[in-house]
């Protein structure tokens, strides 16, 4: 209840500012994200070399583009509405499920130890040569190691678990591999990033590279980074997965979108993640 009230207050103040005709704020690049008073986050980092200057000198977390009230919610785990989803996942972590009578904890131990640093390097190519996101690893363990049912890519149990796992990398730099076995996937993702989809003929780059900092209607365009995923969206009152966000952005160009968990979005996830190499893992973060 407290969270909802805060949210409406934020919206109301945003509206007042807009109606007063004041110029809308540029991303506040001086703001510092410190979580729970002691975890300092790298929200602005030198742009990775592979971008060849496409985003200027720095890559910037989506956190900077949000209004002060939304940014504030991410600074304190008691205010971050994603944390109840994390609590549910922590309970699931210890719960036996499936025909093998095992819980995640039986094999991985405490999540703080077993999942430390995992999200920072995902997605990555497996020994078998597949590009896997957190969701793939989780379902592999569930179906092949626990004898449990796979979780739906975009439903709560999965989103909750990816949030709890991301939290174990919080503050660590995103560091996905783009060379070697990852290279062909990365190239595919890059190609998609610059393809102008749909009736509106817009690419990811048209909005998030050429126009970040500008407004499209009321929306302040960010660099479209995924270091904060899964994000808690106040609008949805729930967690949003990376592929769900991609699907929405492609759909909004009036295009036929791609499926969540499909090969195209895996490749795009790797490429977009690599555009944020060096930013701190922020998941689960808060967005309007």
């Amino acid at each position, binding site marked *: 209840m407290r969270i909802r009230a805060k949210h409406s207050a934020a919206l109301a103040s945003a509206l007042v500012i807009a109606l007063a005709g004041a110029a809308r704020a540029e991303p506040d690049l001086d703001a510092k994200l410190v979580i729970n008073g002691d975890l300092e986050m790298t929200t602005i980092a030198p742009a990775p070399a592979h971008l060849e200057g496409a985003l200027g000198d720095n890559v910037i977390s989506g956190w900077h583009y949000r209004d002060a009230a939304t940014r504030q919610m991410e600074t304190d785990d008691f205010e971050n509405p994603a944390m109840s989803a994390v609590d549910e996942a922590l309970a699931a972590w210890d719960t036996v499920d499936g025909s093998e009578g095992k819980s995640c904890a039986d094999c991985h131990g405490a999540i703080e130890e077993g999942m430390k640093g995992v999200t920072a390097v995902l997605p990555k190519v497996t020994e078998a040569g597949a590009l896997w996101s957190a969701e793939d690893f989780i379902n592999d363990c569930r179906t092949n190691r626990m004898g449990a049912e796979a979780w739906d890519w975009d439903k709560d149990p999965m989103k909750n678990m990816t949030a709890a796992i991301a939290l174990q990398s919080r503050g660590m730099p995103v560091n996905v591999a783009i060379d070697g076995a990852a290279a062909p996937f990365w190239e595919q993702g890059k190609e998609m990033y610059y393809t102008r989809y749909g009736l509106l*003929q817009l690419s990811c780059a048209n909005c998030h590279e050429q126009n970040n900092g500008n407004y499209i209607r009321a*929306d302040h365009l960010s660099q479209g980074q995924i270091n904060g995923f899964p994000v808690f969206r106040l609008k949805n009152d729930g967690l949003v997965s990376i592929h769900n966000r991609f699907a929405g952005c492609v759909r909004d*160009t009036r295009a*036929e979108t791609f499926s969540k968990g499909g090969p195209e979005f895996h490749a795009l996830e790797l490429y977009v993640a690599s555009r944020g190499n060096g930013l701190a893992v922020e998941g689960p973060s808060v967005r309007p």
Partner: protein
Amino acid sequence: MRKLFVLGAAAMMTLPSVLSADTAPRDVAFADDGSVAESLTGVAGDPTAGLENATSRGIGNCVACHVAEGWKDAAFPGNVGPALTGIANVYDESQLRGILVNSKKTFEGTVMPSFYNLDDIIRPGDAYTGKAATSPDVTILTAQQIEDLIALLLTFDEPLPE
């Protein structure tokens, strides 16, 4: 994010290219500079309908990307494109028609959508459902909606902003 151009059921029923009196999207004649001299419909544009069109998310939604004195009351105009205040002093009717029909023929590679165009569309969708388009012949706006917008923009004859 907000949907840029929500095609409502009503708009869907007026699939532009099937209206016989209109110039079909692929038959529009462009001059070398991207302008289009001839009216798409032969019917004079209505600036009031144009304003409704420009400021509605469901139709043209020009406000998503442009501010203009002519729609100063519209909430939250975006700034991806330049201000359109005084634009009638910059472009004539043919040039405006060209920009609206297919912006890419005037501004190479521009982010601005082409509102009456069927070519070079990758993975066309069925409005904003994320599903595949059910017809290959859908444009964002109808021919008459383009003419209405031109009529509106021609009233934007304020002094150009600094």
